């Protein structure tokens, strides 16, 4: 079955979320910082009277911070809360096929891999499908990745 994905870029990598799960795509919004929140929480946004929590996907994935301005946000509803995912830029809405799908290979860094359902091998690019359920689970468990790594040392 074909499926439509809202796509966006973080750095050079292309990511996607099922179109039906995306409430809207917006430009940059005025963000009110939340003191003490984990680094990937950019703050709160007034989205026409509703409050959305803005998350930096770059920070959440543990990717290096770039000088690129996060110009765009993808707004989804997770467990009844509005979540605005900050991304570098928005791509097209793409149609993908089941036959193009593959689970995420081991080579992807764990910080990113755990948020991915898998990869669509489309013409000219690899598209990583975000696992929103996983995102939601991680967020409600308030995971702080830095701290969880410390025991291995």
């Amino acid at each position: 079955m074909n499926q439509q994905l809202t796509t966006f870029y973080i750095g050079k990598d292309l990511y996607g979320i099922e179109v039906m799960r995306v409430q809207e795509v917006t430009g940059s919004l005025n963000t009110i910082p939340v003191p003490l929140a984990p680094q990937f929480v950019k703050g709160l946004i007034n989205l026409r009277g509703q409050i959305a929590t803005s998350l930096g996907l770059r920070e959440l994935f543990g990717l290096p911070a770039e000088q690129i301005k996060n110009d765009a946000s993808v707004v989804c509803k997770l467990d009844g809360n509005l979540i605005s995912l900050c991304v570098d830029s928005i791509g097209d809405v793409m149609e993908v096929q089941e036959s193009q799908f593959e689970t995420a290979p081991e080579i992807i860094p764990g910080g990113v891999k755990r948020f991915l359902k898998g990869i669509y091998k489309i013409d000219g690019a690899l598209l990583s499908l975000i696992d929103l359920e996983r995102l939601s689970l991680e967020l409600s468990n308030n995971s702080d990745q830095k701290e969880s790594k410390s025991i291995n040392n």
Partner: protein
Amino acid sequence: GEMMKTRMQPIGNVLNKFHRVVRDLWQELRKNIAITISGAETELDKSLLEAIKDPLTHIVRNSCDHGVELPQVRKNSGKAEQGTIAIRSYHEGGQVVIEIADDGKGLNKDVLLQKALEKNLISKEQSAQMTEKEIFNLIFAPGFSTASQITNVSGRGVGMDVVRTNIEKIGGTVDLLSQDGRGTTIRLKIPLTLAIVPALIVSCGDGTFAIPQVKLAELVRVDQSSQENRIEYLQGAPVYRLRGKILPLIDLNSVLGHAHQDAAVRPITNIAVLNAETYSFGLIVDSIQDTADIVVKPLSRLLKSLHVYSGATILGDGSVALILDVQGIAKVARVRNEANAPEKTTVGATDQNSNHHRTEFQDFLLVHLQSPTKHAIILSYVHRLEEFKRSDIEISAKRRVVRYRGAILPLISANELLQYPQDPQSVKDTVSVVVVEKAGHLYGVEVDTILDTLSTTADTDTTLATENGIIGNLNTGQELIVVIDPFQIIEAAVPTRPKLTPVSGEKPLIAKATGPALTGAGLTPKRILLVEDMAFFRKLVTGVLEGAGYQVVSASDGLEACQILDSENGAFDLIISDIEMPRMNGFQFATAIRAHAKYKHLPMLALSSRADKSYLQQGLKAGFNSYLEKMQPPLLLNSIEDVLSLSLGGKSA
């Protein structure tokens, strides 16, 4: 909810006025309409009630005007000449639901689409792709009116879009169901956790924050150059003499981690004197802005778990302000001034002698059973609250059930299980049911009345927990409350073989202190590291384990557990861990342990109130040897024995 308990009023205060509204409309519209109202006793915050009054009136008038047909039209289509509008109100899963149903002509999709196209609200392409629900929702679009003539009754530009805007403004939702020719039902959901509260708006650093007025005692402005009216220091901690009493001070800037000037060097300091549950403190802020009635919007769990914010709100200028959790800030700043405590009214019992510095709150749902004492269920156990008509209850193989969301919900009477005599007088037409999820299945625990929620620091005394289904007693300082365990009650009524775990749960309960704790390794008791974020459960499980002769060390999350393991050199026989915890959850913790060179062989048992299949699998994958549902002491002790003997066997082999 600290904000919730204020000013609750029955919704009937608004609904009952509609009898008159509808009667008046009879004349004007020449329609014959009966109105029925049920659930008028459902309570809602006064300010929310005020906010829904106009939208509700509009909906009712709309139903009379556009919904119910003229008597002759009804007769011709084979309906009774008298139309009905039924308003129902009830609690459902932390929300108040208000349904307004008419048996009128319903919405016609083609007519709606036609209108929307005419008014350029949608394009032709869009119209072809719209679902039924989307089409019905067109009536909420700005500038939409389905009546071919705008009437006096519900017209004049105020459309359903205003209704929706107003309901959404208070955090509610509007839903619409309709059947062509059969009628329309509009369903409003008003969240209980949202409220309009008067608040003080302050600024601190770059941010703007709101403090609920109920927590505010007074504002003090301190001039540091004066001799009497100034901030003093006690062992480095700032205090202020408020009418001869020492008031501890907390600088909001330092709580929030802002770089800031010390209060002592500022010429003028603003202090908001706040009442935490058991004591007062002064919160130093940069400036006082204003007072305002704010709409409390919930925060995601992630931000709630910071314990500093209770919500967020949108201010008049459209900017977002965080609402401060006064209790939480006090906790975070770890200020306690015991000397002030006796003066304050306490909701949670204060344990003056205990020296644990972490006061933790546990939320309970309070219910009435056939007993003079209130009963409580741990709120996080509650899946939903439902009310069923007694006539909807069916019998399946001696068990009472209701059909619920496409499945069968077994009903279990808490009174029956706890052997409380049922007074036949008390049987009502509706039954209140606490829906609990146990091992992936839903069960309904029947109670007499659902009363309220309670957030308390009071400890649960388990000494009287001899009866099956009872966890213990809660002494709130004002009254005694019996804490019941819905899982045990369900297990007693619907026994399940514990298929969840590879261990057997059928052995008899091990007698106290003679159990496996002392066997095997001779006379040294086995040491267990218990990882659990909620103090309530920490205490409870520790009690069960120590009762069986184990030695227990506890940690409040995975990270603390790691520190304990390091400091004690991993000298434990077993780790029991909760799953949902702050900082480092159970899955991460287990993964970390299994990856650790020294600790990876330690047996681990997961203990969680979420024990559905996916959690179970994830738990086993992360490295737990076994996964158990919370609060089944016999099963817990048996599993410990099994896991320990397994690991012993493994070592000797």
